[in-house]
């Protein structure tokens, strides 16, 4: 892991920590009254604050996962560092695309 990867890994974790709490609180509170999918969409449509927060969450998760997965592949699977980086960041990129698409879909 290089200095930049280390820093990005920590910063993305700092960003994600409050967003995980927000996400858990949101889903727990949302299902309290037994919300249907349609009712949830009613609340998320046009909610740009939620969209921004979840887009930030997705970006942070994609960065964090890419670096972390590359490290796991290099240390646990014995993969060459550069190959591990390619696989890790490709997976991070996939998460980024799928995550942003999901956020866009409910916005």
């Amino acid at each position, binding site marked *: 892991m290089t200095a930049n990867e280390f820093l990005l890994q920590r910063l993305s974790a700092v960003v994600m920590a409050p967003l995980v709490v927000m996400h858990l609180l949101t889903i727990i509170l949302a299902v309290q009254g037994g919300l249907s999918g349609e009712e949830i969409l009613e609340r998320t449509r046009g909610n740009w604050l939620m969209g921004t927060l979840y887009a930030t969450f997705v970006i942070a998760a994609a960065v964090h996962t890419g670096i972390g997965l590359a490290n796991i592949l290099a240390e646990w699977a014995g993969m060459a*560092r550069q190959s591990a980086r390619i696989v890790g960041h490709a997976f991070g990129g996939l998460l980024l695309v799928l995550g942003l698409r999901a956020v866009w879909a409910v916005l």
Partner: protein
Amino acid sequence: VLHSEASAEEPVGSTALSVKVWRGGPDGGRLQTFEIPTSANQTVLDAISLIQRQKEPSLAYRFSCRVGMCGSCAMTVNGVPRWTCRTLVSAVNHGGTLEIRPLRNLPIIRDLVTDMTPFFERWTATTLPSGSAAADAAPGLEDRIIAPPKRSGANASEADGVDRTTSPAQPAPEYAPPPALSNATLEDPDRRAANEATECINCGVCYAACDVVAADRDYIGPAALNRAWAAWNDHRRPDHKAIEDAVTRTGGCHTCHTHGACAAACPIGLNPSSGIAGLKRETSRSTLRGIWNLGLSFAGSERSAQGGSR
């Protein structure tokens, strides 16, 4: 310190000790069992020496000073890397048995002797295993951090090899010690941090204890980074950029998982984990400062461009 764990009351020559010793070479080996008598204050190295002198003359092992100074005799004792000359048998034998193997994470030459080359290559070089083009091209920590400042001019040749840290000789006209040198005191926190890190005896115990060294072939290990931390805190060597370059590459300080195995195993009680955390902290600060300065210079160039276009 391990020897302090031992009881002062020990039977003399009365109890048999079963010692399983790893025998073999680079291609593999097996454990061979020897029965030897115990004695008062018997160290693990004493036990191995007794086996070699009285039972198995072909047993290969390495030692030198026998007093915990040289760092030559480290081996794996009952699964834990230790300096054998200062480890009392009574402190580590479980049920009258010892199992002694060569140090982990290092190539085996024969029996209990490991090839320390990878350890010292990493200790003196930067981040990549020897033999790689990048490692050969990269100047080592030795050259980049510890070497005294190069002098030019008429006094250059006589200056080579002079240890300025101890020599009271007059400095050459073009060399002036940094002000920090004269200001450093033993109470200075940086000086204390440097002092602690310089106590390393290069026994390789931390390197053998580290699971990250075992998992990541690029990782230079706790001893090399501990040394870099000493240099970082040394007022006489203010070239932080060179140290930063050396420890922030792949396999540098950011590879450490802070398991603390190095600190737990270090026979003289050093804490390389703490030094590595210090390197992570300082290099992260430096990176953030670099980003901040880049932003400032970008903003400054934008402003001057706007001013010029008016």
